[in-house]
Structure formats: C-alpha cells, structure tokens
C-alpha cells in the first residue's frame, strides 16, 4: 500500500477463490491495487479498517445478501460498489441496486467489460463536471441555463425530459433501477408506472440519440432499468 499512492485501491468480496485470483490478475495488470475478502463480514471489516476506492461485491456470499451488505456499507460510506451476479439473481440484483450499489455485471463477464465499468465508476467520484457544461457525443448540456444542443442546434426538451436527462448526467455510468428513476421524477407513488418511464425514454432518445434503433447513450438494462453511458 505504501508503494503506489496514486494507484486506486479495490476491495474484492467473493467467496470463490478462483474468481478472486482471476480478478486480482486482471485488475493488477490494469494498474489497480487489490485487496480480498472471502465473506461479507470480513469485507465490511476491511472497509472499516481502511476504505478502498471501490468495492467489487459478489451477490452469492454465504453470510449476507447483497441488499444487506449494501445497507451496512451505505451507513458509513458512499464509495462505489460494483456487484457481480449470475443469471437468475434478477431480484437480488435489483435489491442491491436499490440499496445503493452503483453498477452490476453478470457472470460470466469479460475482463475488458469489467475494467470499463470500473473506469466509469471511478471517474464519477472525481467530479469531472467542473464547468457548467456537460458533453457527450455531439450533445452539449448547459446545466446552469438548462439548455441542450446537439450538433450546435438547440434541442427542445420538456421539463420532465430535461429532469430525466439531468438525473442520468448526475448518475452517469451507473445502472439506475426503474424504481429509482420513477421515484426521483414522479414521486414514490409512481413506483410501478414503468410505462411513464418507457414513454419518456422513447421521447428523450428520439431527441438525443443519433440512431433510435441502436441507442448508444441511454442503454436499457433488461428487467432492471437504464444506464447512461457518457463515453460509449
């Protein structure tokens, strides 16, 4: 730890030793420092001892569910959490995301994808939005004046559409669940009204995306929610 203070430090919490070994290999290669924990309790102690820059958390731990770990973790810190799940764990995935996890990957995943997600997560904690404008692709969002332009031309967004865009920019590169977005924009009562969200996403994509049939920035996470990818 003393060696490289500039290197970001990651904590991997997974009970499979082979996954931990492989993650260490991949992550150290990519220039991260890696700590490991085998159980959720050990992982939480590690976080208490010295907070890492981000946590990679497996959902299939023997002692606590993902939701429980997140709840305990979020009492103390807001550090980014990437969860690893397998197919079929949709509900626990959503529970963990609702409890404050930032992103998820479904096993088996590729190393490249993992590194891309981690880069995006770590980028978020260093606020790059120093200025009042946020750019992605040919789109420019003036956050102070609430103005959006695409290829220099003004894009007229309704209040809700803008609020949606702003929410995505605030939580860029993070998987947002339907519940989170609906609560944020329409209030807790709208929690189950997924069709609001689908309708507004369609409108927003029409105005912002280059190609409506293959959206680049606003990506759908099947059965989970949406993710805004600022650097596709």
């Amino acid at each position: 730890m003393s060696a490289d203070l500039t290197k970001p430090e990651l904590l991997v919490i997974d009970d499979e030793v082979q996954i931990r070994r492989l993650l260490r290999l991949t992550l150290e290669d990519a220039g991260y420092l890696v700590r490991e924990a085998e159980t959720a309790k050990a992982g939480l102690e590690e976080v208490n001892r010295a907070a890492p820059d981000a946590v990679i958390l497996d959902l299939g731990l023997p002692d606590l569910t993902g939701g429980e770990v997140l709840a305990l973790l979020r009492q103390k810190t807001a550090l980014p959490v990437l969860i690893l799940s397998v197919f079929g764990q949709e509900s626990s995935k959503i529970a963990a995301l609702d409890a404050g996890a930032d992103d998820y990957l479904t096993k088996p995943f590729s190393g490249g994808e993992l590194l891309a997600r981690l880069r995006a997560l770590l980028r978020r904690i260093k606020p790059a939005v120093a200025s009042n404008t946020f750019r992605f692709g040919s789109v420019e969002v003036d956050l102070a004046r609430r103005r959006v332009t695409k290829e220099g031309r003004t894009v007229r967004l309704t209040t809700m559409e803008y609020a949606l865009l702003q929410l995505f920019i605030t939580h860029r590169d993070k998987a947002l669940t339907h519940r989170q977005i609906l609560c944020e924009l329409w209030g807790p009562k709208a929690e189950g009204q997924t069709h609001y969200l689908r309708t507004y996403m369609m409108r927003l994509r029409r105005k912002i995306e280059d190609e409506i049939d293959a959206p680049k920035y606003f990506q759908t996470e099947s059965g989970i929610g949406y993710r805004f990818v600022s650097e596709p």
Partner: protein
Amino acid sequence: MAAPTPTTAWPTWPFLSRGRNRSGGVAEATAPSGWRLRGDRGTASPVREYLEVLGVIGAVTVVGWFVPLTYRAFGHIYLLAVIALSLRVGRGPVLVAALVSAVAWNFVFMPPRLSFSVLHFEDSLMLGTYLLVALIGGQLTARIRAQEREERSRERRATALFHLTRALTGARTLDEAVAAALDQADGLFEARTALLLAGDNGTFAPHEAGAFVLDENDRAVAQWAAYHQATAGRFTETFPQAAGLHLPLLRAGKVLGVFSLCLPEAAAELSPVQRDLIDGFAAQIALLVEREQLRGASEREKFFAESDRLHRTLLDSVSHELKTPLSVLRAAGEKLDTEDSDKRAGLAVEIRTATRRLDHLVGNLLNQTRLESGGLKPQLDWCDARDVVNAARRTTGEALANRVFKMEIPADMPLFMADAPLMEHALANLLLNACLHTPESAPITVAAGLENSDGRERVFVRVSDRGPGLPSALRDQLFQKFRRGNGARAGGLGLGLSIVRGFMLAQGGDVVAGDNPGGGACFTVYLPHQAHGSVPNDER
C-alpha cells in the same frame, strides 16, 4: 330430486346422531321384512286402501239409497266407482271393491231391497257380467299403474345416474370426481355417504369429501365388506347393527374401495328400487375410481418412459456438448504456456469461442430447468420493442457481428406487457438459430408491430432470415425439446426453440414458425396487446 315418493311416514329423514341406539337397529333387522318394494301401494299401506275402498262403496250405496233410479242403473254407478278406485289403489283392494259392490248391489238395490234377492236369469247374468267387468277392469288398471310406477322409478334411476355421470365427466381429478359423486349420492339417498379407497397396504382410507364419518365399528364392517367382496352393514344379513351400509367397489375381481351410506335412522327398510339405485351408483363410482387409477398409472408410465428417454438424450448430448468446449479449453490452456505469441492470439479466440458455447449451453439448460420445475414466474411490465430487440442482439453477441441485420419497427410501436429478460432470451435464441442455420451472407431481419387477429389486437416480433427455410417434415416437432434440425451444425442441444415456446407461453403469448415470403424461415412471437394507462404529459 328423483327420490322414491314414500306413502307412509318417511317425510323427512333426520340425520342420525353419532351416538345412535344400536338395539333399535338390531330389532329392525331381525324382523323378517326382507326387501320390499317401497313404492308399491298394495303392500305399503294396505289397511288404508281397503278402508278407502269400503268408504267409497259405502258412500255410493248410502247416496244411492236416496236417489230414485232403477236398480240396474246402480250397476253402472258401482262399475264406475270400481274403475275409478282401481286408478288409486292396488289389486287387492280393487278385488275387494268389486266383490263388496256386487254384494251391496244385490243386497241393497235389487228388489226386494235390503235382502239378498233370489235372482232370475237376467239379473244373475247382469250381476255376473258386472263382477267380471269390475274384476278385469280393476286388475288391468292396477297392472297399468304398476307398470307406470316401474317406468317412473326406472326413469328416476336413469336420471340419477345421468346426473352422476354428468357430474363425474365434469371432474378433472379423482378428488373432484369423488366429491361430485358423494355430493350427488347425499342428495339422492338423503343420506350421508363416504368413499373408502384402497391404500397400499390393504387398508381402506376414507376420502375426505365424504359426509359420513365412519366410527370404528363401521370401519371394521367396511373392511369386512371389502375383504369378502360382499355388501355388509345395515339392511343386510351381515352386521345389520352397523350404522352404515357398505358396498364393496368391484372391478374385474379387484376391490378398489368401499362405498358407505348412512341412511337416516327412521328408514326402516330399503326398497329394491333404492337398492338397485345404490348398486348402480356404486358401480359408477367403481368405474370412476378404476378409470382414474388407470389414468394415473398410464401417466406415470408415460412420465417414466419420457423421463428415461430424456435422461438418455440429455446425458448423451450434454456430455458431448460439454466435453467439446472443455477439451478445447484444456488443450488451449496447456498450449498457452508453450506457444509463441503470434499463435497465442489464435488460442485466445478458441478459448473465447469455447466459453461462449459453454455459457450458452449452461444458460439454456438452466432455462429449460426453470421452465420444467414450474419455478418460472414472469414479472410482466411495460416493454419497449426496440429495447428488447437490442438486448437480444447484445446477448446473441458475435454470431450477429458480421451479419446484415435490419430492424423494422414502426415509430408508433406501442409498449407491451412482457417479462423483459424472458423476451430477451426468447428473441436471442431465435436470432442465434437464424445465425446457425443460414449462410453468413444471408441477412436477418427483426420486425415488430401490432396486428389484428380475430378481432383482437396483438403485438408481434418476427425474426426472419433468407436461409434454406424450414423442412416441412420437421415443422410439427420444431418446438419440442431435443429436436434438432437435420442440417444443423454440430453443437446445440435442441433446447432453443423449446425454451422460446416455454417463455412465450409463460408470458401469455405464443410462437409460430413459418415461411418467409420470398424464401427463408421466419419465427413470430406474439403477445396480447393492451393499452397502458395515461402518461402525465408536459409536452410544450
């Protein structure tokens, strides 16, 4: 209700209390009554009918006394009275009516009145004729009435059995059928009934639908009836003191169970008609139990045969399917150490391909298991067709990378209710199939929209290709598991389409295979269309 109409006191049958007085039962059964036809008035209430006959003849005589008619006219009036009586009473009373009226006619009306006349030839001929006509007419009418009664009870029996059969055919399971049958029996016999079914170890357990709760005594009698294959209990020679009547259900010499009735205590005896009806009922129920047992047995057999076949197929193909990528992985892993760097790239590609294949295989096996375990509970929510298709494209991965891929979704495509991950898997399986079964140069198109089918709107998503199309021989079996196209390349378990179908059915939709106009195959998944609620609008 087609219960026999009692003439004497059987108006209501109070249900027996469980602590019933046994001595009454013994006394009643020891009386040598045997089986008597309850519906026959001649034997059922003779005294009352004889009194009625005497009353009528007496009344005619008294009234006639004051009517100034010739004595011959009274012959006709008596005849009329006897024929009328024969419509109401049995043979014996009619006979008595004929004789009494003949005597009364002679004694009261034939001159000299109030004394037996010495008949001259004409009058004795008339009296004789009268007697004969009265006897024949009375007997004929009585016989017709008996036939009619017989007919009626036969009809009642047929109706009862018809109702039973109808109730039974409507039942889907043995439990439902037993409940229906016992319910019918309760009403028909105005009794509580029970059905004991043969268990595995020779004992008979009462079915829970029965209203008649057997106590220890009756259980023992039922067991006896089953063991000796003979009716036992109340109204029989064997254990007449028992509360219930127990009939063994026999089919092909095998006892399937016991049908038990607990008739009201007031019921003194059982008429042959009732007895017939009960026997008919028992036979029907026996048939039902046998049918259900046979069905159960054949289903079990089919199930075992099928699962045996599945096991073998699964073992064969899974072991092959797993071992191929595993051997690739192992060989490539070993070679990675020794090969020089430019060959390593090739090995990495092999490893990636093998892992994808394994991933796909495991995914499909898991999906099929989820489908078959019944653990699949779709979470229906509003879905966007573009999202679903794009997700499926991502899942399909590299297989689609070098393809010409077209998406044809109208701008006004409505949202639809589906389980997004299930739709994604279903479509990904269709896309992967299209990739596997067509040459790489063939384009693949995904279209979606709304169409009208029999007046109902439904959403469709269609995956079409320009490949060789579907062989007609295979079409019926396409969606069965472990069916693989003849021309299919190595690889795959033949689970893909079975999963597509399972997933679509689980969501209330369907999948249909067809020909792509202009060549190739197309697979269309359907989902019911419904309009979603209003969306708060803030369009400026």
